[in-house]
């Protein structure tokens, strides 16, 4: 009995450890004080959120907010979306191809292919960013959005690959053979059987690839050249040694909120699916 209680207390403690910094971040996003603090309460405010939509005039009037470059921030966020919109489909294509070759290609090259395709997921993120920078630089491409896309795709494609592979391994080969035997062309088999079968996995792979692309900092920092993304911009703001207005806290709070909603929706949906 006591060991069970101990385990419960420990698990609770672990969750507190995981959530405490997030809660503090949320609390300070409503504190009318810059840099963010939870120990000194200067009154409740929503202006760190309103920053993103308040009028130019009132923005300039605020002594703290006027020092921030809103357009740049929005621009960097747009860059991130643009990058993700290329990285995600590209990663799905590469990941799917890799998954199919690794699961269905019986060949001696298989072992080598495993190592090559999984190595970016094992390598430190910064190395991928650097090698993309150096490689494309040598081909005459300057660091920027393009190198970010290339560097991110290198390792992000591994996530869809692993997810799809797990699913492909669970699909009996007989299904495809049965369809072929019934006279379907390989392409039809792929379209009618394999893709629909993979659809849920492709969806979750796309979500994971999107999040990985949006949040990536380590690789992007090295490949970005003069470009900026959402993550590097947040990083730059957070690094400010004098502390930074709690605008980042408000962004973080929104992200946390979205994550909680998504996680809850996912849990709810998968539970409903499990109960037929």
């Amino acid at each position, binding site marked *: 009995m006591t060991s069970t209680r101990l385990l419960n207390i420990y698990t609770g403690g672990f969750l507190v450890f995981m959530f405490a910094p997030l809660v503090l971040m949320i609390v300070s996003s409503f504190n009318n004080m810059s840099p963010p603090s939870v120990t000194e309460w200067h009154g409740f405010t929503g202006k760190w959120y309103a920053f993103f939509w308040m009028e130019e005039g009132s923005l300039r009037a605020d002594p703290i907010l006027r020092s921030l470059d809103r357009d740049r921030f929005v621009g960097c966020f747009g860059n991130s979306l643009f990058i993700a919109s290329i990285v995600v489909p590209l990663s799905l294509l590469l990941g799917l191809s890799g998954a199919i070759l690794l699961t269905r290609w019986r060949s001696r090259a298989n072992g080598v292919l495993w190592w090559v395709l999984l190595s970016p997921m094992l390598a430190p993120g910064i190395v991928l960013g650097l090698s993309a920078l150096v490689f494309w630089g040598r081909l005459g491409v300057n660091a920027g959005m393009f190198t970010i896309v290339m560097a991110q795709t290198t390792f992000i494609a591994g996530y869809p690959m692993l997810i799809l592979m797990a699913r492909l391994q669970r699909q009996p080969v007989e*299904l495809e*053979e049965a369809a*072929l*035997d*019934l*006279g*379907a062309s390989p392409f039809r088999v792929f379209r*009618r059987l394999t893709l629909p*079968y993979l659809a849920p996995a492709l969806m979750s792979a796309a979500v994971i690839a999107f999040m990985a692309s949006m949040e990536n900092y380590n690789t992007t920092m090295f490949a970005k050249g003069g470009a900026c993304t959402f993550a590097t911009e947040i990083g730059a703001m957070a690094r400010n040694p004098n502390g930074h207005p709690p605008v980042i806290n408000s962004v973080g709070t929104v992200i946390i909120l979205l994550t909680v909603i998504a996680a809850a929706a996912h849990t709810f949906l998968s539970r409903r699916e499990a109960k037929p």
Partner: protein
Amino acid sequence: MHGKDVTLDGVAITYPNGFTAVHPTNLKVEAGEFFSILGPSGCGKTTILRAVSGFVDPSQGKVLIGGDDQQGIGPNTRPTALIFQNLALFPLMSVWENVAFGLEARGASKAERRKKALELLDLVALRDQADKKPQELSGGQRQRVAIARALAVEPSVLLLDEPLSALDLKLRQHMRAELRDIQKKTGVTFIYITHDQGEALTMSDRIAVMNAGVVEQVGAPDEVYNAPATAFVASFVGEVNQFKGRIVEIREDGLAVIETVAGVLVGKNPKGLTTGDAAILFVRPEQVQPGQHLTNQFTGQVMRRDLEGAFINYEITIREGAQLVMHTTNTGDGVGVGAELSVGFQGNGGIILPEGQLARTGRELAA
């Protein structure tokens, strides 16, 4: 629908890893025949089936269907349809879409497909389940969907890879009759793979018994059961008592005398063995009977008695290290364990075959 004949002309199959699954084999399956290939797992029977359906290319020899060489023709264009052991129903399609899939691949319109699918579902008595998903059906129903799906492409040859093995006993027995019926109704050639001799014996027109990549015997069920051609066939098909020994005499009446641990025994000699040959005498438990004055006569003690309802199985020790199994009809006056019993079998009840590889017994399989 018309069945076509299937010919294996010297077909041998070796896998890339060097394992020879099928040694050179000649086999002819007649059009419209219910043909079974019977053998223990790993004997190469599934490989032959995959060679006929086109998933495996023979390393040597040719596969002919209706007289046409199938070399270079893929599984999707052969006049065959395969029913998989796990049925391989498409989980994301409804029952009727499963059945109509082959027609879809052939470019039929949706209305046409649905109509044909419902007809076939009628044939297997599943019309009311057409819009369900395969997972929602029972085992027997899924079985019938797989058959309807295979028949939808109007194959000349239907290949069945142990499709009943996942079902429970009662259902399996029912499905045997149903498969047999469908085969009669459609006239399609059935090639049925199984390791269950009961299935093979009850359904087939002819049976091929395979062991270790070699077809040991081809014949009608009675022939295979009553006149096995090799030691393996005798030991694999049905239950049998076996006594290893050496031929000591060839008698005038064509029977042979063999000396074994159970004594000197007399049996048929279909292979024309001569004195001194190493051989095995096989005798079916139902050939063994209680009584006196039989050609091969023993007295022994009942070690075990299993009541199987209509039958009683006795295991009798007839000599140090020699047991005899006897099946008798249950007439209500059987003896119990420990009783002394006079038993034996007639000279033409046993069959003497050259020594060879035997099928593994239950005890060996369990080891």
